C-alpha cells in the first residue's frame, strides 16, 4: 500500500517544488544527475571487473594501511571526500573490493579531505567542480562510441564522474540561494551551548550544500574576516564532518547491500569522530596550540589552526576506530543482511534413486515435469498471459484486439529462481544415469535430456521475443498490435493444449494428440507469414515493424516447436521400449500440411 502511494506522492511534491522554486529545481536535478552519475560509474567499473583495475585495486587496497593510503591520496587529488565515498560504494557494489578495504578507503578519505582546508587556508585555492564536468562528459561520450569494451568502460566512468560533478554543482548552485540565509555573525555563542548549536549548524549547512569542502570554505572565509569566533568555527568544522555522511547515504540508495554497509560504516565513523571531538575539544585545542608553535604557525592565525584542528580530530577518529574495523565489518554484515532470493530446488532426485534404472527414470521424469510446470508459468508471464487464464476456459482470442497488459517480470532473475537449479540437477542426474543405463533405458533417458534442453531453449526464445512484444502489444498501430497479440495467443493456446495433454493417461494417445497441435502450429505460421506480407505490401506497418514482425515470428515458431518437441520427448520417455505404435499411427508431415492448408474448408 505504502509503495503504491509513495511514487505519486513524491511526484506531486516534486512538481509543486519545481513550480514554487527555481532553486528547488536545481537541487532536485542535481540529486538526479548525482544518482545517474553513480549508475554510470558502476556500469564503467563493471567493464573492468576481473581485469587491470581489479589488480590495481587489489594491490593498493589489500591491506588496511594501503586502503587508507589510497583514500588519502585519491581524496587529496580529487578534493572531494564525497566523490571518493561514492566511488568506493560503486567499487563495492560491483564487487571489485571488499567491505574491509572499503572502510579503509573511507578512513583515508576523511583524512584526505582535511587537505582542502589547508589548501584554502594556506593558498586560497578554490576548485569549481562544474569546470571539470563538461569536458568529462564530452570525452566520456566520445569513449562510449568506441568498440573496445575497456574504452567504453572508461567512458562510462568519465561520464559518471562528469554527472556527479554536475550534480554536485547544481545542488550547490541551488543551495547557494538558501545558504545566504545562514548568517553566522548574528549567532555567535560560547560554552557548551555554543559548541552543540554550531556543530548542528555545521551539519545542516553541509547537508544543504552537500559538500563539507564548501562548508569549510565558508567557515575559513568567515573566520578570516572575523565574522565568526575561533571557538564557533571549530564546532562548525566538527558539524561539517558529520553532515558529509549524507552524501554517502544518498549514494547508497542506488547501491546493493554492500554499498549500504559502507555508507553505514561511513556514518558510524564520522558520528563517532564528531562525538569524540566534542568531548575532548579542550584537549584538542591545547594540542593544536602546541603543534602550531612547533610548526611555526602564528598564534593568531586561526584559519591555519582550524585546518590543523580538522586534521587532528580526523586522525584521532582513525586511531580510535582502526582497532574496531573487524568488529565493525561483522556488525554491519549482521545488521544489513543480503536478501536471499528463494530458489526452487529439485524435489524427486536423490542419490538412492540412481541405483535402480527404472527408479532413476521415474525420478527424472517427474523432475522434468516439475521443470515444465515452472517453465509454463515463466513462458506464460513472459508473453504477458496469466497462467490462470491459460488453464481456464477463458476465450484467448479476446486478447487479440485490446492493448496487452504488461506482466512485470525480470526473466533472468526468474530463470535463476525457478529453472536453473532444477535444470542443472536434471542434466547432472541424467549424465550419471546414462553412464550406467542398459540399452532398454538409454533411449528414454536421452529423450528426457532433450526435453530439458528444449524447455530451456523455449524460455530463451521467449526472452528474445519479449523485448519487442512489450512495446508492440500496446502499440497504437492496430495492425501491429493485433499481430503481436496473435503471437501471445498462439503460444498461450499451445500451452493450454499441452496442459490438457498432461492429463491424458494413455501415452500413445497423448503422443498422437500432438499431431493436432502440429496442424495448429503450421496453420498459425502460414497465417502469420501471409499477414506480414499483407501488412508490408499495404503500408500498414513501417519497415522497422515489418522486420521485427518477421524476426519475432521466428522466435514464436521456435518457442512453440521447442514446447512441442519437449512434450514429445517426455511422452517418448514414458513409452515401453521398442513400442512402434505411435510411429505407425502418427501423421506424416505432408498429411499435416494438407489439413492446415485446407483450414476453414473441412466439412
Amino acid at each position, binding site marked *: 500500500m505504502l509503495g503504491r502511494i509513495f511514487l505519486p506522492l513524491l511526484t506531486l511534491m516534486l512538481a509543486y517544488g519545481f513550480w514554487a522554486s527555481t532553486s528547488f529545481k536545481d537541487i532536485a536535478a542535481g540529486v538526479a544527475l548525482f544518482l545517474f552519475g553513480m549508475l554510470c560509474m558502476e556500469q564503467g567499473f563493471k567493464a573492468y571487473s576481473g581485469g587491470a583495475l581489479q589488480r590495481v585495486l587489489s594491490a593498493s587496497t589489500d591491506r588496511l594501511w594501503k586502503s587508507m593510503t589510497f583514500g588519502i591520496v585519491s581524496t587529496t587529488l580529487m578534493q572531494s571526500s564525497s566523490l571518493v565515498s561514492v566511488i568506493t560504494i560503486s567499487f563495492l557494489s560491483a564487487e571489485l573490493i571488499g567491505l574491509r578495504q572499503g572502510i579503509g578507503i573511507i578512513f583515508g578519505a576523511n583524512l584526505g579531505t582535511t587537505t582542502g582546508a589547508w589548501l584554502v587556508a594556506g593558498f586560497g585555492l578554490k576548485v569549481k567542480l562544474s569546470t571539470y564536468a563538461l569536458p568529462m562528459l564530452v570525452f566520456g561520450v566520445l569513449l562510449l562510441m568506441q568498440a573496445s569494451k575497456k574504452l567504453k568502460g572508461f567512458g562510462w566512468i568519465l561520464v559518471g564522474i562528469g554527472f556527479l560533478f554536475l550534480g554536485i554543482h547544481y545542488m550547490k548552485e541551488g543551495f547557494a540561494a538558501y545558504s545566504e540565509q545562514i548568517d553566522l555573525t548574528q549567532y555567535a555563542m560560547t560554552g557548551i551551548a555554543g559548541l552543540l548549536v554550531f556543530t548542528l549548524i555545521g551539519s545542516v549547512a553541509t547537508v544543504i550544500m552537500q559538500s563539507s569542502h564548501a562548508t569549510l570554505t565558508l567557515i575559513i572565509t568567515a573566520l578570516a574576516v572575523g565574522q565568526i569566533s575561533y571557538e564557533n568555527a571549530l564546532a562548525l568544522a566538527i558539524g561539517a564532518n558529520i553532515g558529509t555522511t549524507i552524501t554517502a547515504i544518498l549514494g547508497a540508495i542506488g547501491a546493493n547491500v554492500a554499498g549500504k554497509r559502507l555508507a553505514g560504516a561511513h556514518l558510524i565513523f564520522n558520528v563517532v569522530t564528531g562525538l569524540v571531538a566534542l568531548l575532548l575539544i579542550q584537549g584538542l585545542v591545547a594540542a593544536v596550540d602546541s603543534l602550531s608553535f612547533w610548526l611555526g604557525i602564528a598564534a593568531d592565525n586561526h584559519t591555519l589552526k582550524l585546518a590543523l584542528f580538522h586534521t587532528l580530530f580526523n586522525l584521532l577518529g582513525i586511531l580510535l576506530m582502526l582497532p574496531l574495523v573487524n568488529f565493525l565489518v561483522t556488525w554491519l554484515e549482521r545488521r544489513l543482511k543480503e536478501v536471499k532470493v528463494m530458489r526452487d530446488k529439485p524435489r524427486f532426485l536423490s542419490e538412492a534413486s540412481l541405483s535402480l534404472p527404472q527408479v532413476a527414470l521415474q525420478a527424472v521424469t517427474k523432475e522434468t515435469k516439475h521443470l515444465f510446470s515452472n517453465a509454463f508459468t515463466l513462458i506464460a508471464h513472459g508473453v504477458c498471459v496469466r497462467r490462470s487464464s491459460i488453464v481456464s476456459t477463458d476465450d484467448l482470442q479476446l486478447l487479440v484486439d485490446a492493448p496487452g497488459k504488461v506482466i512485470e517480470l525480470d526473466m533472468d532473475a526468474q530463470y535463476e529462481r525457478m529453472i536453473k537449479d532444477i535444470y542443472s540437477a536434471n542434466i547432472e542426474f541424467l549424465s550419471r544415469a546414462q553412464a550406467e543405463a542398459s540399452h532398454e533405458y538409454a533411449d528414454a533417458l536421452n529423450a528426457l535430456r532433450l526435453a530439458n534442453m528444449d524447455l530451456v531453449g523455449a524460455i530463451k526464445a521467449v526472452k528474445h521475443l519479449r523485448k519487442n512484444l512489450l512495446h508492440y502489444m500496446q502499440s497504437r498501430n492496430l495492425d501491429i498490435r493485433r499481430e503481436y497479440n496473435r503471437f501471445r495467443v498462439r503460444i498461450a493456446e499451445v500451452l493450454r493444449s499441452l496442459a490438457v495433454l498432461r492429463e491424458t493417461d494413455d501415452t*500413445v494417445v497423448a503422443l498422437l494428440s500432438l499431431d493436432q497441435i502440429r*496442424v495448429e502450429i503450421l496453420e498459425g505460421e502460414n497465417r502469420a507469414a501471409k499477414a506480414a506480407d499483407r501488412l508490408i505490401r499495404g503500408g500498414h506497418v513501417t519497415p522497422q515493424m515489418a522486420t521485427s514482425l518477421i524476426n519475432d515470428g521466428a522466435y514464436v515458431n521456435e518457442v512453440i516447436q521447442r514446447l512441442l518437441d519437449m512434450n514429445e520427448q517426455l511422452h517418448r520417455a514414458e513409452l515401453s521400449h521398442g*513400442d512402434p505404435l505411435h510411429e505407425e499411427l502418427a501423421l506424416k508431415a505432408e*498429411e499435416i500440411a494438407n489439413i492446415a492448408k485446407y483450414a476453414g474448408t473441412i466439412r
Partner: protein
Amino acid sequence: MKNAKLIEKLRKLIKNRNNIDEEHIEKLRKVLRKLKKRQHKLADERQEAQNDHDRQKIDQEIEVLKLQRKKGVEIYKQLKKEREEFS
C-alpha cells in the same frame, strides 16, 4: 534328435511372434477405441461451439483423428491377416 530340437525351437519362435502380435493388436485395438471415443466427443462439442474459430479447430482435430484411425485400422487388418496365415 537334432531335427526334433530344431522343430521345437521353430515352434517357440512362432509362438513368441504370435504373442508379440497379440500384444500389439490388443494395444492397437485399445488406442483405436480411445481415438473413436475422442472423435465422437468432439462431434458433440462441435454442436455447442460458439464461433467459427472453435468450430474450425474442432474440425481439424476430427480430421486428424480420422486419418490416424484410418491408418490404425489398416495396420489392424494387416496384423490380423498375418496372424491367420500363421495359425
